[in-house]
């Protein structure tokens, strides 16, 4: 390979290495499915089908902090909204293949220290359709921010 091409290839690889330190992947939405007026519906973070899931993968020893932004209302058609609660204990974290779950509070910030591997964040919550809730689909964003220290 000619030196000029080698230099270009190395330069191109640097951003990939840096951004590859920690990978945050949205794997599954939190899906309450069908709910009915006036009947609250809860999804446990351990629910294998309905719970939301975000996975953080690290290729080396790393320390990062995690913060959450969760909705209090889901948005429906037009101006329709539906209350949702994602509170203390509605988020769980598991390291790698461990079955042990850390129970988290979305209003707190967490410091994570781990080696190579991944950590799975699982999201549950409760929606509380009003007795006059308009039928239709409702949705809202759950955002998790990972800051590598």
């Amino acid at each position, binding site marked *: 390979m000619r030196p000029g091409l080698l230099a270009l290839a190395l330069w191109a690889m640097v951003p990939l290495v*840096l*951004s590859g330190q*920690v990978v*945050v*992947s*949205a*794997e*599954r*939405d*939190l*899906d*309450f*499915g*069908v*709910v*009915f*007026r006036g009947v609250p*519906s809860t999804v446990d973070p351990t629910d294998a089908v309905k719970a*939301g899931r*975000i996975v953080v993968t690290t290729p080396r*020893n790393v320390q990062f*902090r995690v913060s959450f932004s*969760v*909705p209090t209302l*889901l948005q*429906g058609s037009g101006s329709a909204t*539906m209350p*949702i609660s*994602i509170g203390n204990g509605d988020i769980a*974290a598991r*390291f790698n293949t461990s079955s042990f779950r850390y129970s988290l*509070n979305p209003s*707190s*910030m*967490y*410091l*994570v*220290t*781990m*080696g190579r591997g991944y*950590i799975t964040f699982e*999201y549950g*919550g409760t*929606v509380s*359709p009003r007795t006059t*809730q308009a*039928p239709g*689909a*409702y*949705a*809202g*964003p*759950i*955002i*998790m*921010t*990972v*800051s*590598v*220290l």
Partner: protein
Amino acid sequence: MRFPMLAAATLLGAGAVSAQSASITARANVFTPLVVTGAQDLDFQNVFPGAAKTVGVAAPSAGRFDITGQANAPVSLTFALPTNLTNGGNTLPIGSWTGCRNATNTATACTTLTPSATATNASFGAAGTMFVFVGGTVTPAPSQSAGVYTGTVQLTVAYL
């Protein structure tokens, strides 16, 4: 050996080298509650000893259930049916149940179904209405005692 650690962070003195976010969606689908109404009784009117009588689904005296629910949603229809109508201690056999359903309140061009304890699957139309018509046959014995005989036909509807 290093163990992973997760702790609530109360002191965040270290500046972040990089940050990234991921977003998932919380979603729910609000359905219109199911409402099932026994709108019209199945009425065999006058029958005579030894003479079976059938009421078809399109007859004016056929039974009818009116159902409202979520537009286009699939549901199951399950019946609890009597084998006899009763008048005190006397019984009048009933059977050969027939049924059909339609999105509008007419038995014309309706979709046939067999009322039974085994669920029948169906779907609402765009209007979120369903009409279920029920017919059957009573078979009075030659020695059938005179009187008014009644029984209960129950329809249970559930979202799938």
